[in-house]
C-alpha cells in the first residue's frame, strides 16, 4: 500500500489566543480529489495553507509526501517544491510576463535550463488554452485568463499535490467555467487535489470526498453523492440549504 500524500493528525492552529483549527484529522491518498467547503471564517484557507507552511500549526502532525512539516527549513523547501498552490487572487507577478511567471520557479528552484523551462511552460500554457498570451503581462489579461496562468505556473513545477483556495470566487460568472474546465481536466489526469470551493457542480463531478468545515473542525466528510443527498449533520444541512 502506498503512503498517503497528506497525513494530518490531531492538528491545532492558533492565531494568538484565537483557536482557528481544532483538531484536524485527514488523510489524502495519492490521486484523490477532495473538495472543502464551509462558511466563511471556518478555517478552510488556514487548513490548506498549513499544508505548504504558509501558516504554521502549533499542535499535531502534518506529513506531505512523507515529509514532516516542522521548523526544519529543508523540509519546508522540499514540500513547497512538491506542492502547487492556486490563490483566490491569482498572485501572479505583475512585473514579469506570463512566460516568465511560469519559468521562474523551474529555473530558480529546480535549476532547469531556461530553454527547457520555456518549453515546459508553453506546454502547460497550451493546456490551459492561452499559449498566445505568453508574452503579455498579467495586467493585460482577464481574471479567468490570469487564474489559468496561475494554474499553469503551479503545474510547471510538476507538483505531486495541488492546493486551490477558492480559485473562482474572485471571478466574474462568465469566467468561472473556463477555470473549472481546466481544473476538471487536471483531476481527470490523476492529480491529487485539495480544493476549497463552493462550486458544488465541480464537487459532484470530480470529488472523491467532500469535506464540510465549521468553526475550525471537520464536521462532515463523505463521497459527493452521500454528502449532497444525505448529509448527516444539521450544520451541513443548514449550510447546503443556504448555498444551493
Amino acid at each position, binding site marked *: 500500500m502506498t503512503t498517503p500524500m497528506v497525513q494530518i493528525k490531531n492538528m491545532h492552529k492558533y492565531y494568538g489566543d484565537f483557536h482557528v483549527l481544532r483538531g484536524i484529522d485527514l488523510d489524502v491518498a495519492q490521486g484523490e480529489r477532495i473538495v472543502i467547503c464551509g462558511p466563511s471564517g471556518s478555517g478552510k484557507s488556514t487548513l490548506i495553507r498549513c499544508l505548504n507552511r504558509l501558516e504554521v500549526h502549533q499542535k499535531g502532525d502534518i506529513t506531505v509526501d512523507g515529509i514532516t512539516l516542522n521548523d526544519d527549513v529543508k523540509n519546508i523547501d522540499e514540500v*513547497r517544491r512538491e506542492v502547487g498552490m492556486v*490563490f483566490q487572487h491569482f498572485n501572479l507577478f505583475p*512585473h514579469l510576463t506570463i512566460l516568465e511567471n511560469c519559468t521562474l520557479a523551474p529555473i530558480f528552484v529546480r535549476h532547469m535550463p531556461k530553454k527547457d523551462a520555456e518549453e515546459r511552460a508553453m506546454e502547460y500554457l497550451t493546456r490551459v488554452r492561452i499559449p498566445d498570451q505568453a508574452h503579455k503581462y498579467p*495586467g493585460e489579461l482577464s481574471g479567468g485568463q490570469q487564474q489559468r496562468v496561475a494554474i499553469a505556473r503551479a503545474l510547471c513545477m510538476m507538483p505531486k499535490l495541488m492546493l486551490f483556495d477558492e480559485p473562482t470566487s474572485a471571478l466574474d460568472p462568465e469566467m468561472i467555467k473556463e477555470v473549472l474546465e481546466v481544473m476538471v481536466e487536471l483531476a481527470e489526469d490523476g492529480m491529487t487535489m485539495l480544493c476549497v470551493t463552493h462550486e458544488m457542480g465541480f464537487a459532484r463531478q470530480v470529488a472523491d470526498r467532500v469535506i464540510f468545515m465549521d468553526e475550525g473542525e471537520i464536521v462532515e466528510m463523505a463521497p459527493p453523492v452521500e454528502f449532497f443527498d444525505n448529509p448527516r449533520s444539521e450544520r451541513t444541512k443548514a449550510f447546503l440549504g443556504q448555498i444551493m
Partner: protein
Amino acid sequence: MMLNWMRANLFSSWGNSLLTLISLWLVWVIGSGIVEWALIDAIFTGDNREACLVPGAGACWPYVGAKWNQFIYGRYPLESQWRVDLIFAMGAGALIPSMIEGMRGRRWFVLFLLLPFPVITYVLLTGGMFGLAEISSDLWGGLVVTLIVAVTGIVASLPLGILLALGRQSDLPLIKAICVVFIEFWRGVPLITVLFMASVMLPLFLPDGVVIDKLLRCLIGVALFSSAYMAEVVRGGLQALPKGQTEGAQALGLSYWQSMRLIILPQALRLVIPGIVNTFIGLFKDTTLVLIIGLFDLLGIIQLTFTDAGWSTPQTHNTGYVVAAFIFWIFCFAMSRYSQRMEKRLDVTGER
C-alpha cells in the same frame, strides 16, 4: 491654430486671463533682470578685479575663468590634474552607455562602474603607487570632492538601505532591533552632527596610532546617514506590495533571498523611484555641509576664492554663488530627468 490654443489654455476665462498676464509680467521682470545681469551688463574679459569695478557692472565672468581650475580640482596639483580628467573621462564613458536602455554590453559598463572603477579612482587620486606622486586628500577639493562624497553616498546608501529595510521587517527579533535602532539613530541626528562626530570625536575613540583619513571618515558618515533615509524609503515600497506576492513566491518554493531579489524588490523599488531619487538629490546638496569640517567641496572652494584680494569686487560673491547654484542644479536636474524616464520605461507592464 496657435490662437485657438491660446484661447483654450491661457485665456479661457476672465480669471485665467488675469493669471496669464500676471505670470507673463513676472517672467518678464525676473527673466529680464537675469539676462541684464548675466549678459548685458556683465563683464567678460579682464585679468584682475579692475575689469569688474566698472559702476553698474553685472556678473564678473573673468573671475570665474581665473578660478575655474580651483572650482573643479581644488588645490590638486596642476601637473597631476590629468589623473582627475582621466577619472572623469572613464566615469562618463562608462556611465552614459550604462544608462541607455538596450545598449549592448550595458551590464559590463555597470559592473565596471561598481567594481574596478572605485579602485582605479582611489589609486589615481591618492597616488603613491605605480610611480604616481602621492597627493594627500587635504589637497583635493572643488567639484571632485563634491562628486566623491555624493557618489559614494549614493552608491553605498541604496544597498545598505535595502538591507536595513529588509532587516526592519525581519522575523528575527535581534536583527529587527538592530536595524530599528540604527535607522532611528541616524535619522534622529543632523548631518552636521554626524560630520562633526566623524571628524572630531571618532579619532578620540580610535586606538593610538590609527589614523583614518578625514575624507574617508566623512564618506562613512555620509553613507551611513543616507542609508538610514534610504531604508525608510524602501520600506515604504515593501509595505505597498500586497502580501500575496510573497506568498505566491513562497508557494513556488523560492527562498527568502530569491523572492526578495526576483519578486519583491523589483516591484518595491520601482514604486519608490521618486523617493529614492529625492534622497539622492538631497544627499547631493547636503555634501556642501562638509565645509564645516574643513573639506572644501565645490561651494567651499568658491567661498574660499572670495578671500582672494586680487578678485574682490562687488559682484564676485554673486557670480560665484550663481555658478555654484548652476552646477548643482545641472546635476540634480539630470538625476530628476533620468528618474522620470526610468519610471516611464518601467511602467510598461500593463498594470492598471
